[in-house]
């Protein structure tokens, strides 16, 4: 059971972190980050369609289809809805509890994780999380459509930022902090690959369309989905060029949602969580992270495009998944041999 790399735990209680608690912290953090990204993505795209009302049904379907594909939820969506349009996709990605990655599912799950470790997080963190949950619980999807979804997405984003800010301001810089941060950065990296990938799924434009109004607006939407529009303009001070957008979101070493920045943090946290300190990585997770780091530090956008942006992004997603899985397995994993329903029943008999 002992993990390599860490000093043996002292008998004092402050240093002890239950595996189950680490697991809940990690997922709570990921789920909130995921809900925030999904909110931004939907918000930006609904806005985008308002600006370009000329889309016909096929265009709409393609647009929303690409968002579903990048979210990785096409198959599940097909079992619930027949056509992909603004309403069905937004319902599915935002409000549908049958979709475990919908905003609602993420917030509910994050809150349940927070409730399980209520004693471990600050009152401020818990109250913010709980408010977010109460806000969602009190509203139906129909109410939100009537009020206009903009306020809704705004609310989720604000609360996510508030939660992360409060975490920063009130959570001790202990082991738990590392798991919270690890969850946040790995999810953020994953979300950035998906945001970029949306554009791949919108069929590559005809040569004549490149630089046209729609194309530029779509890349603008990609930037805004990653909160990167202003930072991009500050950095390049010029018009939006597809490869520049991709370059910025992949390689920037200063923008906090770029892949490079996220993976830097993931790598750093890995060193602390699994105790990877030597020059040569021992765990698969650290190896994958370092390989990723090397790529992000040395490749150029031309090389990525040559290999294929979509393929590159898929590889990154896979590497991130492998890193996450291994960390869960080595530090947070415990198998529950029991049926969750049976557990719930017995918990209630006490």
């Amino acid at each position, binding site marked *: 059971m002992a993990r390599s790399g860490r000093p043996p735990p002292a008998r004092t209680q402050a240093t002890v972190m239950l595996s189950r608690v680490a697991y809940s912290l990690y997922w709570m953090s990921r789920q909130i980050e995921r809900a925030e990204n999904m909110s931004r993505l939907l918000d930006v795209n609904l806005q985008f369609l308002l600006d370009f009302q000329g889309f016909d049904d096929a265009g709409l379907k393609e647009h929303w289809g690409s968002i579903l594909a990048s979210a990785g939820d096409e198959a599940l969506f097909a079992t619930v809805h027949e056509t992909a349009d603004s309403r069905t996709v937004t319902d599915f990605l935002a409000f549908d509890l049958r979709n475990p990655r919908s905003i609602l599912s993420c917030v509910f799950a994050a809150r349940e994780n927070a409730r399980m470790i209520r004693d471990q997080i600050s009152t401020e963190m818990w109250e913010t999380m709980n408010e977010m949950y109460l806000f969602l619980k009190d509203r139906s999807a129909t109410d939100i459509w009537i009020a206009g979804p903009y306020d809704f997405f705004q609310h989720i984003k604000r609360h996510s930022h508030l939660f992360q800010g409060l975490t920063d301001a009130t959570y001790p810089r202990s082991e738990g902090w590392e798991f919270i941060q690890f969850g946040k950065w790995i999810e953020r990296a994953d979300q950035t690959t998906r945001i970029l990938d949306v554009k791949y799924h919108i069929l590559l434009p005809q040569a004549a369309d490149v630089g046209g109004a729609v194309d530029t607006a779509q890349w603008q939407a990609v930037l805004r989905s990653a909160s990167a529009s202003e930072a991009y303009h500050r950095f390049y001070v010029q018009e939006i060029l597809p490869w520049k957008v991709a370059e910025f979101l992949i390689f920037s070493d200063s923008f906090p949602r770029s892949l490079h920045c996220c993976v830097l943090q993931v790598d750093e946290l890995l060193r602390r969580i699994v105790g990877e300190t030597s020059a040569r990585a021992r765990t698969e997770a650290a190896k994958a992270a370092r390989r990723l780091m090397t790529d992000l530090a040395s490749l150029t956008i031309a090389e990525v495009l040559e290999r294929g942006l979509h393929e590159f992004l898929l590889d990154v997603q896979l590497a991130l998944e492998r890193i996450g899985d291994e960390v869960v397995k080595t530090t947070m994993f415990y198998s529950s041999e029991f049926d969750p329903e049976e557990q719930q029943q017995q918990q209630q008999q*006490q």
Partner: protein
Amino acid sequence: MSILSSTYDCGPFCDEMYSAAGTIRPHYRRLAERLETLPEADFQQRRAAIDLAFLRRGVTFTVYNDSEGTERIFPFDLIPRIIPASEWKRLEAGLVQRITALNLFLHDLYHQQKILKDKVVPAAQVLSARHFRREFMNFSVPRDIYVHICGTDLIRDDAGRYLVLEDNLRCPSGVSYMIENRAAMRRAFPNLFQSYGVRPIEGYADALLKSLRYITPRPGDKPSVVLLTPGVYNSAYFEHTFLARQMGIPIVEGRDLVVRDSHVFMRTTAGLVPVDVIYRRIDDDFIDPSVFRPDSVLGVPGLVGAYRAGNVALANAIGTGVADDKVIYAYVPKIIKYYLDQEPLLPNVNTYLASEPADRKFILENIAKLVVKSANEAGGYGMLIGPAATAAECADFRAKVAAQPRNFIAQDPIMLSRSPTWCDGQLEGRHIDLRPYILAGEKTVVTPGGLTRVALRKGSLVVNSSQGGGSKDTWVLKGDL
């Protein structure tokens, strides 16, 4: 308009605030003066603010068998229950006497059984008790303390006399509400506290941790203490996290613990870490599937072995349930006399045992005038309030009692005291009880206060949260006014 009404009706009951219609008891006078000057709108606003704060903070309990919105806040009433110092002093002495005697009783039951040999308590009653753990005969618990945490339910009859309704010696809950209620009242009436001389209760968690550390199997070393919870679906989960947070100890589920060579460890991100003391909020039956219920998925296989080997301490000890069996309850006055050679300071409610032929006959003939309780249920379940029950319900219980006499007791119905409570836009009398919390460690301490529960339904005598009960802040005063 003030919320205090001149038409408040005390009824035939003892009212906490009024000694007679229109006459306010001295220790409530300053509260009444404050309420006189408080416009109803202000009062309502403070109520709403408290409810919202409870909801936001997640101060909730879980209602079972309720498919929607399973988390609820425990309804809170703003009118406090006030206890003057001299009254509290008598209660405190009575409670300490009772827990002291019960701990001696448990030690004796699990060792020489002198009290059974002397026939003060019939052996058959003890040996047939569901929570008597014969596996723990001749096993010595650390410091000879069985019950470390006790919540005793007290009521007042129509003459204002305090009576013990029941002892909760297994995993009494509710203490977090006592503390949260106080915090809420402080926010609602900050100035009143300063002038009133209300004794603080916030030391509870410290005192609890101290009594838990006191039983560590390795004195000298800083003990590693954990709280063992059934899990997030348990109705008292909020309380478990609350107490763990207040004490700064980890909260663990059964699956977080593992036993190796009769030592208990918790699974942490850095490997296994030893555990010395477990404040367990899981019943005996579920605590170790290798000893008790084999189908338990909440417990820790091997925990009892580690406990027997003296490598880990449990609070409360295994087997305390025998002493809060409602049949054994009837013998507590005799138990106090037997071990302490003292008269009980707090009397019991007059109780009839269905297992005794004469009592049984009386119960069966008078069931409609009695309160019948099953010997091992809690939470207001499995009971009959004869005067309020239908003929069919009475017949049903009569059959149950006749079939399983050991499982039932009956008591004279008590006209529980009432307190003014905000109901439907005005103050009305509602029945209340009181659960103070007693901690037995190096010293036995009673937190000055407790959980006052109130039956919000008009005329109801059932105060349990699962049955429409609410709660009030309980003020124990430094003086008598």
